[in-house]
């Protein structure tokens, strides 16, 4: 009895256990192989402006079984899927057909059919699916850093959002007061210098470089704040927060009351301009839109962007926050803008420059520009220079050209522009060289009496 019953029982259960262990081993192997898949997608345009993309395999061999191409609205523009049973090999030199087998270290070129013609301003996201269920994401146009440097940055704790320094700008309002708060988008100026104690809106461009391809949803807690480092004794400084807001294409602010803010989505690879201007968090019940200004001091301020929101990836959604030590801005009462032409000079050639200088409308009404200095010793300016503007004198000393207003009648007043002509000879160089002219504009009154207006010319 023991033999006939006991043997049968133990034989059967041990067989079952073996089958289960085999299944567990297969499952474990499958997950291990999936983790060894490593691919990336590069999209580009063909000669006829049609979208193509390539898939580079830096992991183990796999089969591409599908792709989804979506536009900037998230709609699927085109998709292809197939079974991975007996697929042909992918090709890097000619268009591959999904599904196709992609060996380790190989690439596949895929031309979507029918072709997708790229239109300027469009934005496409490409998701490629492998036989093991891995999804790889690529975009066109791409604004990502390379995978290696990106991983390094993210690992170092900078986070998924990347800032574009040159985009930091400020604006005035063309209309104020509820319900017609409007940003004057045409008034954009570089925010390296910002006006003191004036209602302004700040903006910056931000790119989502999240390595998992996730979308970042920016909530109303997000703000850009300025901080004056110990200007009047540490611990006494104001934290001036400019909260995020919704701005329409015409500059109209659409989030002015509690709950009216619509979260801003930044898909993977996308760059968006974020506007900051509200003096309160639009998710707080007491918040009603009012302007913010940098009103603590005329001085250099640190600038930070605090992002708060949600990160949504293919299989997860988590709260997200990031602090970008973004930039700096010098808050001044007097602000000038300028340009000079030409910006390229022939090697050893005689060049005539035109410096156009504007005393901005941000400058207080009584503060006029009464002196302009251009240090151009590398161009050896002759003592005799073109006639100065009416009411101004010009002199040259040791390569420095100085213009002075004869009287207050001829000052460059806020909102006015004056052009200054000067000439010199470009040096002879063996290879292209950028020469800079360290220059300055000086005001007759105010707190900040001088502003650098450095220009330059590329000689080559």
């Amino acid at each position, binding site marked *: 009895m023991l033999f006939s019953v006991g043997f049968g029982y133990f034989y059967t259960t041990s067989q079952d256990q073996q089958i289960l262990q085999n299944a567990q081993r297969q499952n474990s192997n499958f997950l291990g192989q999936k983790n060894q898949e490593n691919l990336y997608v590069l999209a580009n345009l063909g000669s006829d402006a049609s979208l193509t993309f390539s898939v580079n395999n830096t992991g183990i061999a796999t089969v591409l*079984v*599908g792709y989804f191409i979506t536009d900037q609205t998230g709609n699927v523009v085109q998709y292809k899927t*197939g079974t991975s049973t007996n697929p042909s090999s992918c090709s890097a030199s000619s268009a591959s057909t999904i599904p196709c087998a992609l060996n380790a270290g190989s690439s596949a070129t895929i031309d979507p059919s029918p072709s997708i013609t790229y239109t300027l301003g469009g934005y496409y996201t490409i998701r490629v699916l492998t036989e*093991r*269920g891995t999804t790889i994401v690529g975009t066109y146009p791409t604004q990502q850093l390379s995978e290696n440097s990106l991983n390094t940055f993210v690992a170092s704790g900078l986070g998924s959002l990347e800032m574009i320094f040159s985009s930091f700008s400020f604006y005035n309002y063309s209309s104020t007061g509820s319900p017609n708060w409007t940003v004057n988008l045409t008034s954009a100026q570089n925010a390296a210098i910002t006006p003191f104690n004036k209602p302004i809106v700040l903006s910056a461009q931000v790119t989502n470089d999240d390595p998992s391809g996730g979308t970042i*949803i920016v909530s109303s807690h997000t703000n850009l704040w300025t901080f004056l480092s110990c200007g009047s004794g540490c611990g006494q400084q104001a934290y001036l927060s400019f909260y995020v807001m919704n701005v329409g294409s015409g500059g109209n602010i659409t989030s002015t009351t509690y709950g009216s803010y619509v979260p801003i989505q930044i898909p993977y690879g996308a760059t968006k301009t974020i506007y900051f201007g509200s003096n309160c968090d639009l998710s707080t019940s007491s918040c009603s839109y009012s302007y913010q200004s940098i009103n603590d001091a005329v001085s250099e301020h640190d600038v930070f962007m605090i992002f708060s929101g949600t990160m949504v990836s293919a299989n997860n959604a988590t709260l997200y926050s990031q602090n970008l030590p973004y930039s700096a801005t010098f808050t001044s009462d007097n602000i000038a803008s300028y340009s000079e032409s030409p910006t390229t000079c022939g090697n050893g050639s005689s060049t005539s420059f035109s410096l156009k200088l504007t005393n901005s409308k941000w400058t207080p009404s009584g503060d006029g520009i009464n002196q302009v200095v251009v240090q151009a010793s590398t161009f050896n300016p002759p003592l005799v220079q073109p006639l100065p503007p009416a009411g101004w004198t010009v002199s040259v000393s040791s390569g420095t050209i100085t213009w002075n207003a004869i009287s207050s009648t001829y000052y460059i007043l806020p909102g006015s522009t004056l052009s200054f002509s000067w000439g010199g000879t470009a040096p002879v160089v063996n290879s292209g060289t950028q020469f800079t002219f360290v220059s300055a504009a000086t005001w007759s009154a105010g707190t900040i009496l001088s502003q650098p207006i450095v220009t330059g010319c590329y000689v080559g």
Partner: protein
Amino acid sequence: MMIGITLAVGFAAWAWARGAAQNSELNFGNAVGTNINYLKENFEVVYVNFSSSATQSATVWIYNNGNTTVYIKQIWISNVTSSFSQTFTNLNSTKTSQFNCYCLQVHSQTVASITLSLTSPTVFASGVVYQFKALGVYGNTNTFQQTR
């Protein structure tokens, strides 16, 4: 007579022991089978597309990355705060008698899609993060999140 009684009792004891062992083998086998089916049921929700013309509709693509046919018996749609949810169990016009469900059938190594429509008047709202959770007949789930 003693021999007869001994044999009868012996056979009865053997029959009881064999029955108990068979019952135990069956239960163990069923448990093993369930675990194996669970392990072999592999699928991924690979993408969701919100219809631009019908704001209550979304198309869900599901890929079977396993080696056996997958039967999806339920898809659950909610927003990430779970303040809204709808469950879809009628995923096929034909009943899958094996599992007594109207399951979406996804063959091995293939992608299947299904378009789901929210019950009126609910629509997919712009800017909201939605969660799509698919449930296989053996208990595996896979979740995909997408913002409209």
